[in-house]
């Protein structure tokens, strides 16, 4: 039996000009990878920071592993790990020192400290560079160090705020592997925010869509995708009467162009195609091309909010890059 280790009820955060988080409620199971997917400014970071007791909610209730985050914040922080959206490792210290500092701040006992630091360094493939100043690291290495740093207190729940933003595909896949391993090997519960639907799809057991501070949908990726009504199947055929024939065969045709392009909604598109082609051939129709488009989480998001997540991506990447540059400038 699984238990809810994070519960959030009617959580609200209002700023003078804006309601950043607008009465959201959700529960996370133990060992679950739970994703918050939404565009920039949706309220993801604000939510994470309330869960981590960094800012006080305007109203609402949060418990983390049975601990009330409002009355016992230090206890929540002790069992949580955090990789913030911004930088969390100090460029003027070495990789090793960054880990040592946080082990000490979390009160990791002296005798287990070195071993633990060595193991997280190896885990992230940083043992060779651990004696170098972090200022000399690449963006991807820095991110891996931040992940290593978030593990020094062996957190029961790990909060990752846009962990792969601004990283190249290779560095990104290292992070995805890391997240999956952590859950599979140690059963760590993971809360991850992202505006990247592919990331959410690849990693998360369950996803909550957040838009303008509100949760608009919540569920398993497959469930969510099934709500948009199936796969989009497109065929083109110049044979006259094809559209009528498709309808006659019972297909749900949703668009129909004079050039002979037809779009229809089907479930399990890859299984439908062979049968469709046979049916059409038997009826004397010549099919020129077939294409299948599976629904994406972006389609789901669009269904619920009327907008797409994707377009916003670039600015965040910029933000992160600027921060990295800023950090380098300081030297």
């Amino acid at each position, binding site marked *: 039996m699984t238990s809810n280790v994070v519960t959030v009820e009617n959580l609200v955060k209002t700023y003078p000009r804006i309601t950043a988080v607008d009465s959201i409620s959700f529960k996370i199971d133990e060992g679950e990878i739970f994703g918050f997917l939404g565009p920039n400014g949706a309220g993801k970071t604000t939510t994470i*920071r309330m869960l981590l007791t*960094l800012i006080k909610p305007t109203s609402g209730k949060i418990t983390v592993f049975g601990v009330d985050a409002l009355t016992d914040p230090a206890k929540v922080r*002790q069992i*949580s790990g*955090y990789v913030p959206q911004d930088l969390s490792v*100090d460029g003027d*210290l070495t990789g090793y020192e960054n880990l040592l*500092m946080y082990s000490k701040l979390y009160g990791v006992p002296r005798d287990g400290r070195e071993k633990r630091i060595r193991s997280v360094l190896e885990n992230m493939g940083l043992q060779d560079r651990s004696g170098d*100043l972090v200022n000399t690291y690449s963006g991807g290495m820095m991110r891996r160090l931040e992940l290593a740093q978030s593990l020094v207190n062996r957190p029961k729940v790990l909060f990752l705020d846009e962990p792969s933003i601004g990283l190249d595909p290779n560095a990104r896949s290292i992070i995805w592997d890391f997240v999956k391993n952590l859950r599979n090997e140690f059963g760590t519960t993971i809360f991850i925010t992202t505006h990247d639907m592919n990331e959410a799809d690849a990693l998360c057991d369950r996803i909550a869509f957040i838009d303008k501070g509100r949760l608009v949908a919540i569920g398993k990726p497959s469930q969510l995708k099934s709500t948009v009504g199936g796969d989009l199947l497109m065929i083109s055929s110049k044979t006259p009467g094809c559209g009528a024939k498709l309808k006659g065969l019972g297909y749900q045709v949703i668009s129909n162009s004079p050039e002979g392009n037809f779009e229809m909604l089907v479930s399990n598109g890859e299984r439908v195609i062979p049968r469709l082609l046979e049916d059409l051939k038997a009826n004397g129709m010549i099919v020129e091309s077939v294409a299948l488009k599976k629904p994406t989480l972006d389609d789901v998001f669009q269904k619920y909010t009327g907008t797409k997540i994707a377009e916003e991506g670039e600015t965040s990447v910029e933000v992160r890059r600027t921060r990295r540059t800023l950090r380098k400038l*300081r030297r």
Partner: protein
Amino acid sequence: MMSLTTYLSSILTLAEFELRKLRHDSSQIWIRGVQPALWLLIFGEAFSAIRGIPTGGFTYLQFLTPGILAQSVMFVAIFYGITLVWERDLGLLNKLLSTPVPRSAIVLGKALSASVRGVFQALVVLALALILGVNLAVNPLSVLGVLCTIVLFGVCVSCLSMGLAPIFRTRERVMGIGQLLTMPLFFASNAIYPTSIMPDWLRVIAIVNPLSYAVDAMRALLVTGDFSTIPQDIIALLVATAILATMASLTLKRMVS
């Protein structure tokens, strides 16, 4: 409940890693050593020649050295709020606040970090004064006393700076407010002339000015040998530190929200 040892060790940890940063890059200490050096060399030598300031039987450079020691620490500490804003901007402060370390321990740890820098700064100035041949009572007791005074004074002033940082929020403004404060703090104190020559209104400022107490204690230790006012100096600094540290701890949260 967090035990006192955990609390203290968190403070020391923060200072320890400041020390490690200094070890990686000590150039700042040398660069910041130039200004106090110029004060001793130019201002000190010039006013020694004028002989216009009553220094109670000591040479003007003897009188001045503790003042410049305290000044060099004050410059490090009064601008420490900028470091706090910088770390907020980068995100480091956010991360630090996500640990179970209490806010007040973070403030004190950061303040002690400023003092760590101040100590090295002061050692540079002290060495320079000795090279210039200033006659100072340098013995283990006086040096230890001076270091303790510097640590306490550094904590005090950096708490002031960190308490102001959440109000002024940007690096530029915190820098501006630091510059605004250094002038009156330095000149309305006993650092470069005795308070006895001041008009009454200025002397009032000097009396509430922590710098005066730090200078007085160090002057007693290094120059006059009259330790009778040291207890009240230390108490004054402790009270100021307690008030300013409390203020800084209470406003720290505003830095990240």
